[in-house]
C-alpha cells in the first residue's frame, strides 16, 4: 500500500472527492475541451481573463481521480495568475510529471501532490490532461485537445 499512497496522496483523494472550481462559468472568455482516449476522461476548462491574468477559471467533466484532482488543483492555483506565470507553471508541472525535471517544491507548492504520478507511466496523461486543456483554452484551440 505504500507505493499506492504515493500516487493517491491525501490531497489527491480530497480533490477528487470534492473538486474545487467544478462548475460552469457564465460567459467565459476562453474555453476548451480535453479528451484522453485511453481512459475516456473528458474535461472542459473555462476561463475569464482580466488584463493579462486569469480572473476566474472552472472545469467540468468526468475522469479518474488523478485527472479530476489535477484539474482541481490546477484551477485553484492559476486563479489570479499572470498568463506568463501560467505558462511557466504548465512547463514546470509537465516536466515534473514526465520526469524531465524534479521540479522546485517552492514553485510547485500544493501541486507537489502530483509528484507520485511519474512512477506510473500509464497515468501521466491523466494528470496532464487538464493542463493541456488549459493551454488550449488560452490559445483558443478550435478543436478538442487529445492527450494522444
Amino acid at each position, binding site marked *: *500500500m505504500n*507505493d*499506492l*499512497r504515493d*500516487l*493517491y496522496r491525501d490531497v489527491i*483523494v480530497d480533490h*477528487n*472527492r470534492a473538486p474545487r472550481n467544478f462548475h460552469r462559468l457564465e460567459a467565459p472568455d476562453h474555453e476548451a475541451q480535453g479528451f484522453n482516449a*485511453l*481512459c*475516456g*476522461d*473528458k474535461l472542459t476548462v473555462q476561463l475569464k481573463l482580466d488584463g493579462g491574468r486569469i480572473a476566474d477559471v472552472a472545469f467540468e467533466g*468526468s*475522469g*479518474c*481521480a*488523478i485527472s479530476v484532482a489535477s484539474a482541481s488543483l490546477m484551477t485553484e492555483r492559476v486563479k489570479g495568475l499572470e498568463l506568463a506565470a501560467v505558462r511557466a507553471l504548465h512547463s514546470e508541472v509537465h516536466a515534473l510529471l514526465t520526469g524531465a525535471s524534479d521540479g522546485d517544491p517552492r514553485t510547485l507548492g500544493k501541486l507537489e501532490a502530483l509528484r507520485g504520478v511519474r512512477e*506510473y507511466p*500509464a*497515468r501521466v496523461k*491523466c494528470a496532464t490532461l487538464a493542463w493541456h486543456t488549459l493551454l488550449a483554452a488560452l490559445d483558443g484551440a478550435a478543436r478538442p485537445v487529445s492527450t494522444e
Partner: protein
Amino acid sequence: MSPPHTVSVGALNATRLRADFPLLGRPVRGKPLAYLDNAATTQKPLAVLEAVDRYYREHNANVHRGVHWLSERATEDFEHARAAVRDHLNAPEAREVIFTRGTTESINLVAQSWARSALRPGDEVLITRMEHHSNIVPWQMVCAQTGAELKVAPITDAGALDLEALPRLIGPRTRLVAMVHVSNALGTINPVRRVADLAHARGALLLVDGAQAAPHLALDVRALGADFYALSAHKMYGPMGIGVLWGRAELLEAMPPWQGGGDMIKSVSFAGTVYNDLPYKFEAGTPDVGGAIGLGAACRYLRGLGLDRVHAHESLLLEYATRRLAEVEGLRLIGTARDKSAVVSFVIAGVHPHDVGTIVDAEGVAVRTGHHCAMPVMERFSVPATVRASLGVYNTFEDVDRLVQALGRVHEVFS
C-alpha cells in the same frame, strides 16, 4: 464458500497447466501474478515458444522459393501450420486459410477486396452495437468508398444481440452482416448460426470476428454457417502479429487480390500479370513464417487440452467470478447476457475504472481498464470505461479471489 483451489476445476487441471506458461511464474510488483487480461492477449505456452524457437534455430529459410533443403523444410512447417488452423476451424480446405497479421487485417482484407468490388451505392452492410472498432471502421471506410450504407443492430440492456430487431434490419439491400462471435467488452456469445440463416435467407453473406471465440469455443465454420471467419493468434496462446482469414473457397476465388507483390503471382509481365491460386493470392510478400508456426502450435496445444474441456473450465470460472464480484460493494456488471464467455466487465460506483486498475495492479492483479476498443458499447451503457477481467485456461478460483481481495483495497484508498 470454499472452492477447490488446488485441485482441478472442470476437467482441466489449471494449476498443473500453469507450468506450461513460463511467464505466469514471474512476480509482478513483488506479488505473484494473477493474469486476468486474456481478452487483450494471452500468455504463451512452452509448446508455442519452442516451436517458434526451433523454426528460427533449425529451419529458417524463405518459403515457396528455394529448391534447397531448408526452404523445403520451412515450407513444409508453414503449410503444416495452415493445416492445424484448418483443423481448429473444421474448415473444408487448407487453401481457404489465409495468413494475415491478425483479425483486424483479415477484416480489412474482406472490406477492401470483396466489399469494395461488390458493394454498390444503396447497398447495406449490417454490423452490431457490440463490435470492436476493428469490425466497425473498415466498414465505415468501404461504405464511404462505395456509397453503401452502414447499419447497426441494437443490443439489449443485458448486452445480448436484440433478436427481435435483427430480422427487420436484414433487408433486400443487405449484402453483408459483419458480427463478433464473442464480445470482447461484454463477453456475450452471439448466436452465429441463427444470424447466418437470417443473412443467407436474404442473400447476404456473414463475416464473423472470431478473435475472442477462437481460444474458448470448439469451432466449426461449416456448422456456424459463416462465409468469412477472422481470428488472431495472440489471443489464443499464439504469437502476436499473425492471424487468419478463413473464407469459403468459391468466394475467395472470385475476389480480387488485395495487396500485390511477390508470392501472390504466377507470372508477371508488363503485358499482364497472372495471379496465384488460393491461399497465396492473398499472401503478398514474405509471410511471418515463425508466427504461423507458432499459431499452428497454439492450435495443437488447444486441441490437446480439448476445447470442450476448456469451455467447461472457463464456464465454472465465470460462474464463480460473477458470484464473488456480486459481493463487492457498489459493483455493477456490464454484460449479463445468458450466453457468455469468461469475461467480466464492471464498474464500481464512485471510482473510475482507471483507478481500480492501478490499485489492483499494485496487488499483482492484471486487468484491463478503458473502453476496450468498443466505444459504442461504453456509450450504450453510459459509462466512460469499464474494468475487465478476462479468464483463460490457466486461471483458477484463486486468481478470482485475488481480484476480489484487491478490489477491497479500492475502498481503503478512497475512504
